[in-house]
Structures are given as structure tokens and as C-alpha cells.
């Protein structure tokens, strides 16, 4: 039995699909009814993980979504960003990512924090402005904890 669920809201043709849990071989997306959608916002914030079978299920489904529907990915956790960068088709060519999480790390304490990058703030379609260091009120300093050329690759691809 799948440890996965979703909610789907229709706001006059703007559909918001919120995914939650583990996306794996037991998940099927074909029952998600997006008839009438002009825009499809997919919120990944509550996705805990995705395995190789889940990647396949996702690509098969997202490819079946009509090209007339504008697809937008939101709140992508690192697990989803990693798949976007790893497998073409995970993010359709016509889709865009408007927000995603970036891990930051404090070497002294071993603490990490996830920072939400939002289109228009840290990046645009043609430019990325990565804050390499973030300082908390406590004085703790966190450094960006990804290899930038790999993690932000999907943005450069989109820009080109």
C-alpha cells in the first residue's frame, strides 16, 4: 500500500496539486483528473522521498499532461531537485520551477538549514544570485552546501 497522498484544488482553471509522502513503485498518478486545467501548479513541499520507480511513474504521467497546460513546480525539496538534474523529462521542457530548497551548513555545529530560493528573489530566468553565506541572529554562519554547478544546473539549462 502506497505511503503517498495528494490534494487537488481547482481555482478557475488554475489547478494546484500538492503531493505528500513517498513516491515509489506503488504510486500511480493516472487517477489525478486535471481536465479543464489551464495551469498546473505542483507543490512538492511534503514529498519525503522518491525512488527510481517513482521517477519513472512521474515521468510517464507528466509526459501525458497536455502541452497546452502551463506546468509550474513549487517548493521543490532537494530530493526533487536532484531528480530534475539527473533525469531529463522529470521537469518537462515547457515547465518551470518557481521555488526550491537549497541546503546550507554550519561547519562548527554541524547544523543545517534549508533555504527556499524563489524566482524573482535569488534567481530569474537568466541569472542566479546565490548567497554563499547566511548569518543567523545567533551569529551562526551557514554556507551553501551544494556543488553549485551541479545543483543549479537545471536553471542554467532553462536560461539557455
Amino acid at each position: 500500500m502506497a505511503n503517498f497522498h495528494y490534494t487537488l484544488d481547482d481555482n478557475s482553471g488554475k489547478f494546484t496539486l500538492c503531493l505528500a509522502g513517498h513516491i515509489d513503485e506503488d504510486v500511480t498518478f493516472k487517477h489525478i483528473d486535471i481536465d479543464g486545467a489551464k495551469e498546473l501548479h505542483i507543490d512538492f513541499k511534503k514529498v519525503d522521498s522518491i525512488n527510481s520507480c517513482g521517477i519513472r511513474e512521474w515521468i510517464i504521467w507528466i509526459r501525458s499532461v497536455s502541452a497546452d497546460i502551463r506546468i509550474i513546480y513549487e517548493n521543490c525539496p532537494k530530493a526533487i531537485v536532484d531528480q530534475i538534474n539527473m533525469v531529463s523529462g522529470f521537469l518537462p521542457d515547457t515547465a518551470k520551477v518557481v521555488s526550491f530548497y537549497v541546503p546550507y551548513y554550519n561547519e562548527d555545529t554541524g547544523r543545517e538549514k534549508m533555504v527556499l530560493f524563489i524566482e524573482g528573489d535569488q534567481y530569474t530566468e537568466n541569472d542566479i544570485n546565490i548567497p554563499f553565506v547566511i548569518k543567523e541572529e545567533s551569529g551562526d554562519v551557514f554556507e551553501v552546501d551544494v556543488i553549485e554547478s551541479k545543483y543549479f544546473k537545471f536553471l542554467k539549462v532553462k536560461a539557455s
Partner: protein
Amino acid sequence: MSAHKRILEREPKKFELILNEQWPDTSVIDVDSVEKKNNFQLTDIGVAKSARPEASTRDSYEKGLKYLVNSSRADFERELNVAAKMSKEGEDFFKYPVATVFSPNNVSENKESEYKFVEYGFNSADDKYKALILLEVELEKISSNEVLVTSARTIVDEMFTNAIYNAPEQALGKEQRRAFSGSERVETKSGRIFMGKNDSFLLIGCEDQYGSLDTKGLMERIHKCYDSGVDSVVNLSKEGGVGIGTYMLFNTATSFYVGVKPGESTIVMCAIPRNLSNRKVQRMAKNFHLLDLKG
């Protein structure tokens, strides 16, 4: 002259001094200097400074390299001993896999219990979520690092999928895969997922009782993902595996351990650092240890 070359040229017997007492006549080869045409013997241990995975995985399936240990890593000496232990006394790996990795010079049931902190037996796809929940609960006791927990979850999930779906298919044919992945849940031979830890590493392992893994094919698939990209390997049809699960394991881990006893057991283990930034983990050169024990 680099520190690595100094080790090999000025101190040619350094590796033998590390290993010789317990494992005499261990063959250690500088992989960086081996000519392309050479093939490796089953018990050769390759040492590189910081091998790129696309090169080392090719050396494995094309030239038979079974053990690769990188000297740039802080755990080099322990990993060198793990390779020697597996190549010389492979049976112990199947009895005490966790101890083999964390205490290669002193493998015992006591050491296995000392380092292993959780184990979960399974024989059905329905056991997966219980396994994931149990392992997550145990992981959260030792780390709140989201990147580490996510990496561990990925590893457990892929290992479980391999053991439940791929192992029976490789052993018994495609009909077994269709049976297990359909709505009717068929029981498989029992397997287990386990985790161990020391101060620096988390070790995640899975054992099935089919012993059907082809290590050469495994490394070839992983190599292709690095060399030609995941897109060249991924199977988007509904039949069979996706083809990228073991690459995801290898790419997430910093050390990769596989033991196959044909018809009896396959053990796959991945080690990930516990207290390093994600950047440092991603930059760490990967070791691998492949043991094919004759049945």
C-alpha cells in the same frame, strides 16, 4: 612530487606493512599507473589518489577491478584493510558484514553487535513501509541532518526494491518480477535490511537469499550512467526495472560493498559520512569492494 606518489615510490612497502601481518602476499596495485591493457586478478586491490567514478567503474567491468581504495581519504587505512579482509577471508563478510567494514582486523560476532544498531527482516513488498518507518525512527536518534536522513532513505528504498523485485527476477526469471509487482503480493525468500555506525560513518546494508547479482553487469550499468548520462540507461517502459537504482546507491554512497555467494546470498552495503557537509561528501572519492565468492 605528490604525497600519493611519495607513498608509492619512496615507501613502496607501506601497504604491505599495513596489511602484511594479517594478510601476507596481498597484491596492491597503483591504479593510476596501470596500463590500459592490463587486467586485474580477483584479489588485486587497486589504490588511486582520487579516482573519478566514471573511470573506476569502467576499470571494474572492463578489466576486472574488484577493490578500489582512494588514498586521499581519511579512512584509507581502514578501507585498505577491508579490501584485504574481503579478498582473503570473504566468508566472514557474509557472517559479519558490518564488523568487516568497521573492524576489518578484528571481525567477530561481538564486533558485529557493537556496530550494528538496527535490523529488520522482510519477505514481502508489504514489509517495505514498516522497514522505512523503523529505520527512520532509528536514524533520527543519531542525526537530525535532513540531507543525511534523505540519503539514507534513498539507499534503503533502492536496496529494498532490488531485493524484493530484481533479485528474484535475476534468479528465477521475469515471471517472478510480474508476480511480485502485481496486485497479488507473493512472498519472496526472506531478506534483511540493517544499519551500523561508527563515529564517522553510517552503514546501510541489505541481504537477500538469492545470490543472483551479477557484479560485472552492475558496474557496467553504473559506469554507463556516469559516462553517458542517466538518460541513456533509464527504462521508462513498465516492464522490468528502471535501471538506475544501483547508480543512485553508488552515487549517494562514499563506499560501496557487495558480496555474492551464488544461490545463497547477496549483500549490498553503502557507507555515508555522518558529520560532513554535503559538499564534502559529494567531493569525496568513491571506494568499492566487490566479492564474488564461488558457490
